[in-house]
């Protein structure tokens, strides 16, 4: 039976199956949907992402999901954004020259620095900068799986909930109200990744 409380946004891109598999493993039955009403009607929304910023923004605008996400943010609804899904929350990205993004979090997305291999691929530690239920039962400096070449640089540093070292000290977890966003992929980060989704869903659904 479908659980209408959890929506995974399908905007024609992203690693939907992996995210859906992870949520299913936790005992929920998420709805993968491209229908704005389904998304707006859910108690918890997951916004997956993988790939390029320009293509992601194009798909979001085409599918009407850009407006849905803006509405979720303005209403303070529980939203979990992953990787490129995190990046498009900011005003714009250096990727491909310059790409305007959703602009729901002030700040920009920058390219990773020199002296390190790019993309940043593999398991790296997340230093927890705040105490937050998202981190429940997850040790500080636990490893998560990253794959990206750009990182978010929000203006308001208080939204930086976790940081990771890779040439720079970058924001790897961003929390603003009910928005939780990670640069890494929890669905590919083993048991701690699953636990992070479980923590988010517990907060959103209780």
């Amino acid at each position, binding site marked *: 039976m479908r659980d209408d409380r959890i929506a995974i946004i399908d905007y024609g891109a992203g690693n939907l*199956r992996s995210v859906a*598999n992870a949520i299913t493993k936790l005992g929920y039955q998420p709805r993968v949907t491209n229908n704005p009403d389904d998304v707006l009607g859910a108690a918890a929304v997951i916004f997956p992402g993988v790939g390029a910023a320009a293509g992601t923004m194009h798909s979001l605008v085409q599918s009407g999901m850009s407006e849905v996400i803006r509405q979720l943010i303005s209403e303070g609804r529980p939203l979990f954004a992953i990787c490129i899904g995190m990046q498009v929350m900011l005003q714009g990205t250096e990727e491909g020259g310059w790409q305007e993004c959703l602009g729901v979090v002030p700040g920009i997305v920058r390219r990773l620095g020199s002296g390190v291999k790019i993309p940043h691929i593999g398991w790296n530690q997340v230093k927890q900068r705040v105490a937050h239920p998202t981190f429940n039962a997850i040790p500080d400096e636990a490893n998560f799986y990253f794959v*990206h070449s750009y990182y978010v640089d929000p203006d308001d540093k208080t939204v930086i909930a976790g940081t990771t070292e890779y040439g720079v000290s970058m924001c790897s977890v961003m929390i603003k109200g009910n928005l939780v966003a990670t640069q890494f992929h929890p669905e590919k980060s083993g048991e701690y990744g699953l636990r992070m989704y479980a923590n988010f869903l517990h907060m959103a659904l209780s």
Partner: protein
Amino acid sequence: MLTKRVIPCLDVTQGRVVKGTSFSDLRDVGDPVDMAAFYYKEGADELVFLDIGATPEGRDTMVDVVKRVSEQVFIPLTVGGGLRSTQDMRRMLEAGADKTAINTAAVLNPRLIIDGAKRFGSQCIVVAIDAKRVISAGVPQWEVCTHGGRKPTGIDAVAWAKQAVVLGAGELLLTSWDADGHRTGYDIELTRIISGSVVVPVIASGGAGSPEHLYQVLVDGKADAVLAASIFHYQVYSVRQVKDYLAERGVPVRR
């Protein structure tokens, strides 16, 4: 600090994991879904599945394997072997793979790297390079081989590695064809030269026989990740033991 990845490789044909020396003398070592779940619990950082039969039927079987593995294994999955088009790649990604590895098809049609990177992102495109050592004027060089190592191409492996990255490869999976299956250690020199020539991560493959070999190719060979098959399949060493060995010697690994 970014950790070094330890990646078990599962060679699959007709729905079974097999192992042999340079693709001959294949032995059945287990069920791919069971083995994947086992390595996940053991602390593997990723898994690579190679369809070594690379027949149309084998591909259908692989899609089914990937689907079932991705329901219970929450680490990155790479699938390769006989992928010739972006359509082939899409099928694997939709089944639950995170990355696709292309080898012969990329050499024959380098455009496939560009098209794959454009459609799915560079992070989905692992270019696998099979390299064989040749001595030219007393200097070691490496030649790219295709078709499961059987066909020498005359292409210089270092030049091809650089070109593959320019075209859009997000990672390189580098196999030494001289070392593969012999368990006498990776080709350190080859790995160090290629890793130093490209900006993307390099996964070293071919020749692992002991934890020391993995240490050498990560430290001396400057590899970002190591692939190994037989030392894990025959339970000579567990993933956990290998990681403990590396950590005790100062190599950052996820534990």
